[in-house]
């Protein structure tokens, strides 16, 4: 665990998020998630890793409050009310009729922040994701990677306590994905939010996260909780190190067991 996470753990004894006995049965009778217990500490970067159908996206939507649990609880022990959330979907999910800037301003506008402040903050966020100069571009004029950057900027513009990401880079090519992984880590390091990252890629989860929660399907459940002790900041050196290869092997083994289970 890095020094920073240790700090975070010391300053708040209670977890940011506490999930107990969480289950979700859909109207068609499918059990998407069965009895999940999970605690998240403030400032963690956690990956939910699993095959398709293991309920990792459902878990993310349950955390966000978009989906109601069939049983169990999602609680925020240290918070007075549900904290500020950011959500990044698999698709960029931008307003096609609005410019990049207006898209990033949207969460602030909905929260009633005055226009000048909102635009300033949105422009700064766009600069942080490397999109200065594109404020007046429309989504359709941007590449897939750039649209995803806009989506990240929108997710972070409210300075959320927790950022939920649902396989955000799955549709991108490998070069763009690596770049965005690096940028995401840098943003996480600078902005200090808690990150929950859903993925089916072992390599992505090991590169990004300090903790990997492995899930299995039918019914969706947590089968392993792996600690990834590699220190941050991580870069290409880490991506090509023996440590990384070893961690990937461990996570891969856990995933294989999960698929076989």
């Amino acid at each position: 665990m890095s020094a920073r996470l240790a700090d975070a753990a010391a300053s708040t004894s209670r977890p940011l998020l506490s999930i107990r006995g969480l289950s979700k049965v859909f109207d068609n009778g499918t059990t998407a998630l069965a009895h999940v217990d999970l605690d998240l500490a403030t400032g963690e970067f956690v990956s939910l890793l699993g095959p398709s159908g293991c309920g990792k996206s459902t878990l993310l939507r349950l955390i966000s409050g978009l989906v109601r649990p069939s049983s169990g609880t999602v609680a925020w022990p240290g918070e007075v009310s549900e904290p500020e959330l950011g959500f990044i979907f698999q698709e960029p999910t931008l307003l096609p009729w609005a410019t990049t800037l207006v898209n990033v301003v949207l969460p602030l506008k909905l929260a009633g922040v005055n226009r000048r402040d909102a635009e300033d903050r949105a422009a700064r966020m766009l600069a942080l994701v490397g999109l200065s100069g594109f404020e007046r571009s429309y989504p359709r004029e941007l590449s897939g990677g750039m649209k995803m950057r806009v989506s990240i900027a929108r997710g972070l513009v409210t300075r959320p306590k927790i950022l939920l990401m649902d396989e955000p880079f799955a549709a991108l090519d490998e070069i763009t994905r690596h770049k965005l992984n690096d940028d995401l880590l840098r943003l996480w390091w600078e902005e200090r939010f808690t990150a929950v990252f859903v993925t089916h890629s072992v390599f992505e989860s090991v590169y990004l996260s300090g903790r990997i929660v492995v899930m299995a399907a039918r019914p969706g459940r947590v089968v392993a909780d792996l600690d990834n002790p590699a220190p941050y900041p991580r870069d290409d050196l880490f991506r090509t190190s023996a440590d990384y290869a070893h961690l990937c092997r461990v996570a891969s083994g856990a995933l294989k067991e999960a698929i076989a289970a």
Partner: protein
Amino acid sequence: MSRLPLAGGNALLDDAADGTDAAARPAMATERRVLGLRAGAWPGILAPVVVGFLGLALWQALVVIKGIPPYVLPGPWLVAQTVVSDWSTLSGSLLVTLEITLAALVAAVVVGVALAILFAQSRWMERALFPYAVVLQVTPVVAIAPLIIIWADDVNLSLLICAWIVAFFPILSNTILGLNSADHNLVALFQLYRAGRWQTMRYLRLPAALPYFLGGLKISGGLALIGAVVAEFVAGTGGSASGLAYRILESGFQLRIPRMFAALFLISASGVAIFLVTSWISHLLLRRWHESAMRRET
């Protein structure tokens, strides 16, 4: 090109990182223009014009060669002359018909959009009222026009009501479809940011409905004109109207066939003008973002 050894550090990875889109910058497209229009737009304008002229020439030739009398089929030249010579009568009628058409279209937009927003607020409201909108739509306007003319005191008001009945349904049904077709993930996003009903309507559902509404508007523009003309035919048989349809009836009784054609021409020209204006509005509103307004690069 020299080969880089894989063991030679991060040169390869760095190259790859530079090749991503983060380094890209917006580029403005420039295009050749002829007489203020895109060079590529001209064939699309010229082709129908040429076909039109050929058709008119053929018609004129037929009338002259066969010696067809003007009370059976006037040539296009005579029709054009009649438009000019009878302009004082025809222009008044054109104005009446256009006023009714535009008023009906505006009423159709206001009522259609308002009802669609109301239906989007409450599923029950939609279930309770939508069938009656369908009833209005499927009842032939010729059949109810006499009733409306009797009930409404003013002839123009009754024509307006008839034209509105014909025009409002495409706007209503298209706008309902549009309001319901906002991206589900975007709806989830608005929910996540605790957006109010009105905020979701204003910033998500209404813009998402815009292309559908505009599609409805194009159809309704033509229908409003048809409604106004058809209703006036019904009213005109009673001798109490003054629009273009009444001029057609009147010319028929008086066997002034060239004037009949002139009035017909003005109705068609109005329809085309309404279509062009609504298409232009649609283009202006959608050109920056909607697929329908984009040209594909080939």
